[in-house]
């Protein structure tokens, strides 16, 4: 049933429908409404057999999740930005131990300077942590991805981050169809851990591994991640069969057939880009769009296939690697090796700066006319930064 709800509420209800047994949370904007919603559902008895733990830090939140998951409980937490960085050590530990925790990242910039608004620099900083990263385009997909995430995580024994744009999605009211607990139960079987702390069958989890085995442990983790590419598609197909809508999966193409230029992006900006692509198409430009849902694992084959036939790919990123440029770009460049495809990077929306149709349109028109640099920062105040650079360089 469609309901007009805030994105955070939609996610809270979708997570509750998955019947997690332990939820732990530390507040950080813009994640707060999600865990507030869940705390109410636990307290008012809607979500039973679930422990809601208020912890003293994000590091503790992920640590509680580790303990709970290793004891065989379906486990959930949510964070953003500084919180994600504060739990970084435990994030690597969770994936290293193969614990299928699902966590929402309400994407937000990282300071300094401190900034609470949306971009992707938080989750991108955890690119290599061994978690799956799925990015939601809208609140319907955000809700659905959590349900799919538990299936993928538990079948692969890998933790999953569901990334949704902070404020833009978490605080936006949209119509969302949230499956009921009964419907989700048909889709998501009870959690059967691969390894569990059981006094009657004691195992040691988290032993010290030396040089003689460490490479093998890491190689196996890599292969599990590669294998999850097929699992992500399979779960999205199953979801579509049961719920009648296509959400999740590796990526989705929009008007790419025969397109000379294809924009590739992640998250909520895909909605804006669809409007821009529609407009430019009406004006006679040959342009399409690929929305990437799965950033980790990176679906090289699917991306290559999606971009086949185009002349130019423009990767729009809400984060970048200081001193290098685009982060997603590096993977896309590898995916299109040998295709003779030009790749351009557009950094946009940093620290919550609005990505407007007008700015996108003007950049894309110039790009299609070969008038842009390979790396562009959308709406950069050139006068300000030029002035500052002159001052700074004089001091060097």
């Amino acid at each position, binding site marked *: 049933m469609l309901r007009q709800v805030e994105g955070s509420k939609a996610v809270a209800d979708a997570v509750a429908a998955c019947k997690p047994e332990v939820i732990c949370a530390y507040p950080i904007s813009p994640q707060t409404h999600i865990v507030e919603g869940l705390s109410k559902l636990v307290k008012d008895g809607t979500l039973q057999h679930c422990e809601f733990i208020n912890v003293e830090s994000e590091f*503790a939140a992920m640590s509680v999740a580790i303990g709970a998951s290793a004891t065989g409980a379906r486990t959930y937490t949510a964070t953003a930005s500084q919180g994600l960085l504060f739990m970084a050590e435990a994030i690597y530990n969770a994936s290293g131990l193969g614990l299928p925790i699902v966590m929402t990242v309400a994407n937000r910039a990282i300071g300094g300077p401190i900034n609470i608004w949306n971009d992707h620099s938080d989750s991108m900083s955890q690119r290599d942590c061994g978690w799956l990263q799925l990015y939601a385009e809208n609140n319907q997909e955000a809700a659905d991805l959590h349900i799919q995430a538990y299936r993928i995580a538990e079948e692969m024994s890998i933790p999953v981050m569901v990334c949704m744009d902070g404020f833009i999605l978490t605080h936006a009211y949209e119509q969302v169809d949230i499956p009921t607990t009964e419907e989700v139960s048909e889709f998501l079987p009870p959690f059967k851990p691969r390894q569990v702390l059981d006094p009657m069958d004691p195992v040691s989890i*988290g032993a*010290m591994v030396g040089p003689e085995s460490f490479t093998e442990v890491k190689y196996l983790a890599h292969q599990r991640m590669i294998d999850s590419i097929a699992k992500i598609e399979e779960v999205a197909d199953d979801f579509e069969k049961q719920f009648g809508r296509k959400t999740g999966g590796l990526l989705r193409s929009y008007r790419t057939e025969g397109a000379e230029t294809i924009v590739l992006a992640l998250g909520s900006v895909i909605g804006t880009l669809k409007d821009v692509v529609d407009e430019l198409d009406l004006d006679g430009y040959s342009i399409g769009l690929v929305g990437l849902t799965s950033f980790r694992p990176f679906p090289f084959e699917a991306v290559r296939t999606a971009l086949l036939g185009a002349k130019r790919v423009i990767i729009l990123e809400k984060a970048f690697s200081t001193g290098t440029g685009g982060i997603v770009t590096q993977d896309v460049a590898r995916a299109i090796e040998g295709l003779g495809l030009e790749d351009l990077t557009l950094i946009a929306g940093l620290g919550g700066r609005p990505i407007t149709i007008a700015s996108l349109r003007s950049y894309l028109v110039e790009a299609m006319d070969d008038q842009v640099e390979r790396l562009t920062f959308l709406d950069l105040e050139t006068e300000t930064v030029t002035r500052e650079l002159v001052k700074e360089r004089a001091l060097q």
Partner: protein
Amino acid sequence: MSVTQIKFYQVGSFAVGNRLLRDDERSVQSDPDRTNALTSGHRACQGCGEALGARYALDAAMRATGDQLIAVNATGCLEVFSTPYPESSWRVAWLHSLFGNAPAVATGVAAALRAKGNHTTRVVAQGGDGATVDIGLGALSGMFERNDDVLYICYDNEAYMNTGVQRSGATPPAARTATTQSVGDHPGNLFGQGKYLPKIAMAHEIPYVATATIADLRDLEAKVERAMTYHGARYLHILVPCPLGWGSASCDTIKIARLATQSGLFPVFEAVNGEMITSSKIRKKVAVDEYLKLQSRYAHLFSPQRNNEVIDHLQRIADRNIARYELMEE
């Protein structure tokens, strides 16, 4: 769980050595049916106080719970010497995650058990003093404050031994470590307020706080058993001498632990809901010199001549403990 008969360790004890007790009062260390949480063959140093303390503590916890126990371990010597993959010395369900998060991981284990309606399995978390008083203090305080059903055991050897004997927040004043060397105007660790975790734990008013040493294993076992009769957050702080870090003879580990209590430097007591209820009385008071002299981490206090100022200061600390924790019989 298989059962291993172990050696009789508590030789020469004048505290509560088994030989002084009637058969029915003897601790289970001499019982051939005893179970071991930690089996032999691990890689601890000769004379390791932590290995001894951990085995007795966890064995007692297993007996108290009918083997329904899950242990969470912080990073440190205890984790490293017990689980070099693919070997493990643990006979309990055991989880190691990180250095600073054992209390929170244990909270998660306890929460999962509660969610599953398992009210019989109990949770113990354990770590060294670095994991407990320094890097994991926030997580420990959180666990205390929420009153999670976890017994946290700190094996205090007063420095970061696993990384090569660097100073921790639990390193006593004047002690030499690799980062507080016995050079300069104030050789060894500086005098300061110290960070005495049992009192910090008591300030959280949790159901049970106790200290113990490996010089009195019967007392240690009794405290673990008592801790298991409570629900909620409990804290046990065990002094475990480290021959490597303290520069003492392997055969002196238990003797040094006993001198720590008999000098007053390490008070042994129990507290319930934040109030001290009992303390172990000193049977034969000794000067701090007796304790210090056996350890090369204090050698600079005796060479080239006795450093009266510093040793007197340490004696005043011991005397203050004796008064504060009522360690002498009236």
